[in-house]
């Protein structure tokens, strides 16, 4: 499938051709997110943390010390970026302004075009995140209770990539709603918020009440956030990795067919505005 590679390369080139955006995207969005989380957790730990299990040890919230919580936030920010990929509603705007027309004319699958774009975006994100992690660890070091290992990184990154396929399918379905309504911005923002909250990208799921946590684990969301983060943190095993990925794949398959159905129905509504 050489056009797929060419499309991937084109998107890759496009992202690197905007150097300012390339760096801002990383430093501004991630740095701001991390700073807000730092001050928030610092205040929370100062007021509500319980003393450590072992006398003399650091206080904890939800089983996390302040240092480990910060590490959780770092991996949530980095892993979340890989999972969420490009959330610019490209498909919805293609439908809205008629940009889809050219892809209907080309002998390629529009879905695969977008998948290649998403993969390119994710590749750049992984490069950025890898650089960011190295810088962060070099400057601030690692919590004493954390053992860094490449195995954990590999486990977490691969789980994030599998999760990104699920998130991609979900996101595409929401974008396809643009075939029926003019704007899906609020729907998209709502989905992002719910997905991030239920997946533990905002706060660890360990802090949810047990009943709520059990309910959340009946959905696919913990497997696209909380579980991969645990892998980064070294709190997971290869069997949990396999379970996480299998769960996500089993959720993705029916959603994929739903996505195809929505696409076929939606195309009948497409009017190719703008030409």
């Amino acid at each position: 499938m050489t056009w797929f590679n060419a499309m991937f390369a084109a998107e890759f080139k496009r992202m690197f051709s905007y150097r300012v955006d390339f760096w801002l995207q990383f430093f501004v969005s991630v740095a701001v997110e991390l700073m807000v989380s730092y001050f928030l957790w610092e205040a929370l730990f100062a007021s509500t943390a319980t003393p450590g299990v072992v006398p003399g040890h650091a206080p904890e919230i939800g089983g996390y010390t302040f240092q480990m919580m910060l590490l959780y936030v770092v991996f949530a920010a980095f892993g979340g970026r890989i999972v969420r990929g490009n959330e610019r509603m490209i498909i919805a705007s293609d439908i809205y302004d008629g940009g889809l027309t050219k892809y209907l004319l080309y002998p390629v699958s529009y879905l695969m075009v977008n998948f290649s774009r998403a993969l390119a975006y994710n590749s750049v994100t992984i490069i950025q995140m890898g650089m960011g992690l190295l810088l962060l660890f070099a400057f601030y070091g690692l919590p004493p209770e954390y053992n860094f290992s490449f195995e954990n990184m590999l486990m977490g990154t691969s789980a994030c990539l599998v999760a990104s396929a699920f998130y991609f399918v979900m996101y595409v379905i929401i974008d396809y709603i643009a075939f029926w309504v003019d704007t899906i911005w609020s729907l998209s923002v709502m989905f992002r918020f719910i997905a991030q909250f239920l997946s533990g990208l905002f706060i660890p799921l360990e802090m949810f009440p047990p009943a709520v946590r059990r309910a959340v684990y009946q959905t696919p969301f913990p497997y696209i956030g909380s579980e991969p983060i645990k892998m980064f943190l070294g709190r997971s095993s290869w069997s949990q990795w396999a379970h996480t990925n299998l769960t996500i794949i089993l959720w993705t398959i029916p959603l994929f067919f739903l996505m195809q159905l929505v696409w076929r129905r939606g195309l009948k509504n497409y009017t190719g505005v703008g030409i």
Partner: protein
Amino acid sequence: MIQTQNLSKTFRVHKKVAGLAGSVKSLFNRQWLDKQALRDVTLHVGSGEILGLVGANGAGKTTLVKILAGVIHPSSGSVSILGHNPWSRSNDFRRQISLIMGQKAQLWWDLPAEDCFLLLREIYQIPHPQYKQNLEYLVESLGVKDQLNIQIRRLSLGERMKMELIAALLHTPRVVFFDEPTIGLDLTAQRAIRNFILEYRKLHKPAMILTSHYMEDIERLCPRIAIIKDGQIVYDGDLARVVNTYANHKILSVEFETEVSPAQSPKAFAALNAEVIFQDSSTVRLKVARTAVAQVAGQMLQQFRVKDLSIEEEDIGNIIEKLIRRDKDVSGKIVTPKL
């Protein structure tokens, strides 16, 4: 090559009452309107033929082109292009067609033209030697060699349109749809693109459908036209036949050797049974009945000292506009011109 049978398309559009109250009301109770964009369109375009699709804004030209290219679904009727149903969008079909839209960029704005063409080579799976040969020919013909490495968004409108043409024809399509390919271009660029289309047609003999509001495009490129009005084809045939039937007048342009006094001329021209459409001290343009052209020209030569005299057909745009304006009959049925 292109065959349509009783093609119809109805759009359902949201009807909104103006003003804030209308906006609030539409949140709870939305009114919909069925707009018939095409009615029973039957057409045939053969290999090497260029059909000019002519009509007012909103007549249904672009809708027809979009249906033929497989971009939108019709409400009823059938289409066969190279034996394919366009809406099945098979890759085999899509490799043989092209749609060039003057009002919509299809290339990737952030990439240089050459990168876009390389991407299209992969998309259309064009063998490398054929790609090289086609690209060289197209770039040479359109004179854009120096712009190949510039980002598309940094090109002028004319240059961009030429790049769009190259992109659309790189894979040597057998069916080409042009939707206003010269819109917004200066005269030189318009002429270059027209010449190119003619040359391309001679070389590859594709079936082509062209829509344009520029009558020069139609005159230069399309020996056959289809006039579309309110979604219905009201005329399908030779352009020359339209001119002969509907152009009741010709334009006589005369340049005088000496100045003609304003006091004297109106009387003299009125006697010629001609309508003055432009006049200054040394030139006059007259609208003359076709049957009286020779007689009026002779009288002019006798009565004035004439430096130059030319006879032109009435502007084709005016003729077609007249035809389009021929309205409905008393029963409300659209009148189909009988030629």
